[in-house]
């Protein structure tokens, strides 16, 4: 979008420098404001509709090729937040999985010598299994989510082109 803004700025410059008789500062200010509204709307749509960090990263990379720093800075907090949440969930899941593995291994060794885990430790096993099953990681990237991400990527790129052709 900032790339589009640049093209708009080039148009404004042309108006200002080449045809000084028709300069209308008010119109230019209005067009700039309209452009800012379109930019904010497009970014808001991306942030509220895409949850997969891989898709958000892909959008940021595409924006990089267009030098869209403002768009990247707006999308980045959402992407970081999603990554932080996933990492936290993964730590909890890893802990439960590894603990369960250890208890089962220990139980196997004890059963070979006709012993078992203490009752309180043994009671942990079903609780851990339940906890692991309730966590759905890594995030499921459904076909519809993938389509939605692609749509918003096209939405941003096409939106930028529309704005640069004077729609705003």
């Amino acid at each position, binding site marked *: 979008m*900032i790339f589009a803004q640049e093209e708009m700025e080039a148009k404004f*410059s042309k108006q*200002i*420098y080449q045809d000084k008789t028709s300069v209308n500062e008010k119109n230019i200010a209005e067009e700039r404001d309209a452009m800012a509204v379109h930019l904010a709307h497009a970014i808001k749509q991306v942030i509220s509709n895409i949850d997969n*960090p*891989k898709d*958000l*990263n892909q959008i*940021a*990379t595409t*924006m*990089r090729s267009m*030098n*869209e*720093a*403002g768009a*990247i*800075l707006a999308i*980045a*907090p959402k*992407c*970081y937040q999603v*990554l*932080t949440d996933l990492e936290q969930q993964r*730590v909890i899941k*890893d*802990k439960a999985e*590894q*603990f369960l593995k*250890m208890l089962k291994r*220990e139980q196997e060794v004890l059963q070979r010598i006709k012993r078992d885990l*203490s009752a309180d430790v043994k009671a942990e096993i079903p609780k851990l299994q339940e906890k692991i099953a309730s966590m759905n990681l890594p995030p499921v990237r459904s076909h519809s989510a993938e389509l939605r991400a692609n749509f918003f990527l096209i939405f941003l790129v096409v939106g930028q082109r529309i704005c640069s052709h004077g729609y705003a």
Partner: protein
Amino acid sequence: MDMRNTLTRVMVATTLTKNEMVEQKIVTDQELTPERIAHLKEIIQAQEKKLLALVLQYNEDPWYLIEAIRELRGKKKFDASITIGNHCRDKLKELKLRAKEKEEHEAERKKLAKEEEDLDKLRKQLPEDKKKRLRDLELEIVLNKLEPAHFNHNNKEYDQQIVELSKLIVSIYYTAQSSFKFQHAHLPNIVKSFLGRLMR
């Protein structure tokens, strides 16, 4: 962690390149109105502030942070480089403390495992509290291995990074001093304070 670093790389590179282009425009485009220049400068400042806040809030990998500092130095963003340098130094200190704690826990685990082995030979078991402690330590060690790479270096490697970072901060000072745009009279004190805190 890789995805986080990838995003930060994209964000830092794009923001710095974009702002450099706008700064260039401000310098070369004589027809820009003072209001427009003021507006563009505001945008640059706001974006740099946001960039810095995001890097400080979400990036903890000293190996990547040093890369970001080099990039900022290249674009003559000296204040931001030193702010991230402080953050990086704090992270390295935290990681060093964690590495020391991990070594202590590993030693404790080995001791308890040996005790368990010896008792096993006598067909006896570890007392329940020691058994629980051994289990916790073993779990901690397995989980540590699953953490991002920057958590799993040894103290020598962290020390090497601290040396690298210090060299970088000193070089930022000299680059700033030799820059024709040098307006950073406060930098010597910042560098002095950085190195002073590093020694503590």
